[in-house]
């Protein structure tokens, strides 16, 4: 591999964060290379969504640092950060489409805000992206009229409309049936191929993670369990990783006493 291939676009160093007094992320280290698909996995409450919010500079770390293109996010000025964000595309869990705009205007929104292009150009560019995600013909629909899979695809079209260098996905397959979610995975891979973007995906779906990942990072209770290729993760002899892969086995450890107490709290006659 050349140096180029190893160039890190995002580097996370000793990231620690709290929610109130609860530690959410505990000394997380991670680097994401140019052009790779990095999947962040973990059960609910593992801190994976929080990590994503930090990569997007939506939250500020309690300690540690996140470097985008070699520079600490905290050191970017507001304007620089805004410029940087034009190079990042994000598809949120429930799409986060603007409810007051139709599909085409949603996709066109970043172009209208950030460029001086003629409106006809903008509309053509938006429709091209809708074509890429197979939503051609749905331009006029409002977000409320779309199915779950269509919302995710529209959000993806909006995320790529500025031709970003980095793409982020929060739970792309959540709430979708397996066929639709597999289609979406295909689309993510196709985009990576065509646009040479780095992709970060947060998911708890194993099938999807194994399909698309170059490397996987597994979080558990805020700590990094393992970072490695799909095979490395599959063959890990770490018990917690295996539990996560075989799911259910350990998903919730029930404390019998506490559980019984919760069930019968404040009931009459007990």
């Amino acid at each position: 591999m050349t140096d180029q291939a190893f160039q890190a676009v995002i580097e996370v160093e000793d990231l620690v964060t709290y929610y109130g007094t609860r530690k959410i992320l505990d000394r997380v280290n991670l680097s994401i290379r140019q052009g790779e698909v990095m999947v962040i996995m973990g059960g609910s409450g593992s801190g994976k969504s929080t990590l994503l919010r930090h990569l997007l500079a939506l939250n500020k770390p309690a300690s540690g640092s996140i470097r985008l293109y070699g520079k600490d996010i905290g050191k970017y000025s507001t304007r620089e950060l805004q410029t940087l964000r034009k190079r990042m595309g994000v598809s949120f869990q429930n799409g986060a489409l603007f409810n007051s705009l139709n599909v085409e205007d949603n996709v066109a929104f970043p172009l209208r805000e950030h460029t001086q292009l003629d409106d006809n150009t903008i509309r053509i560019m938006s429709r091209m992206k809708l074509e890429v995600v197979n939503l051609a013909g749905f331009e006029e629909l409002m977000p409320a009229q779309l199915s779950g899979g269509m919302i995710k695809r529209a959000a993806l079209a909006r995320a790529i409309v500025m031709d970003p260098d980095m793409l982020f996905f929060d739970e792309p397959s959540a709430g979708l049936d397996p066929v639709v979610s597999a289609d979406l995975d295909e689309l993510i891979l196709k985009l990576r191929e065509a646009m040479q973007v780095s992709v970060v995906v947060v998911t708890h779906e194993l099938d999807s993670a194994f399909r698309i990942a170059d490397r996987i990072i597994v979080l558990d209770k805020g700590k990094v369990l393992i970072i490695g290729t799909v095979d490395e993760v599959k063959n890990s002899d770490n018990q917690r990783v295996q539990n996560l892969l075989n799911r259910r086995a350990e998903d919730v450890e029930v404390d019998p006493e506490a559980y019984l107490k919760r069930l019968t709290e404040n009931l009459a006659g007990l």
Partner: protein
Amino acid sequence: MTYLVEEKDGFLLVHLEGDVDLSTSPEVRKLMLDCLRKKPQLLIDLSQVSYIDSSGVASLVEGYQLSKSQGSEFALIGVSEAARSVLQLARLDKVFPIYDSLAQRLQHGSI
């Protein structure tokens, strides 16, 4: 659903048979609470239970909690396949004391 209550080896045994669902769980609840008022060592035999739903499970939970608060015993014996899968789903299989049979309970020590 039908039931049978018997006293054996110092235990009060409640044998339930059939479906414990929305139509029968109020009866089961009342039966159990009535039994528990006498503060016995109560064993619920679920071996003949062909179906149990969440209201049935809730009644068992209530009975168990009452027995704990009054310091008596409450256990399930001979849990049928149908009942076991539902208890597992409710993550209560580790909460209730469960024995295969009265004999197994007796091996476990005295009352």
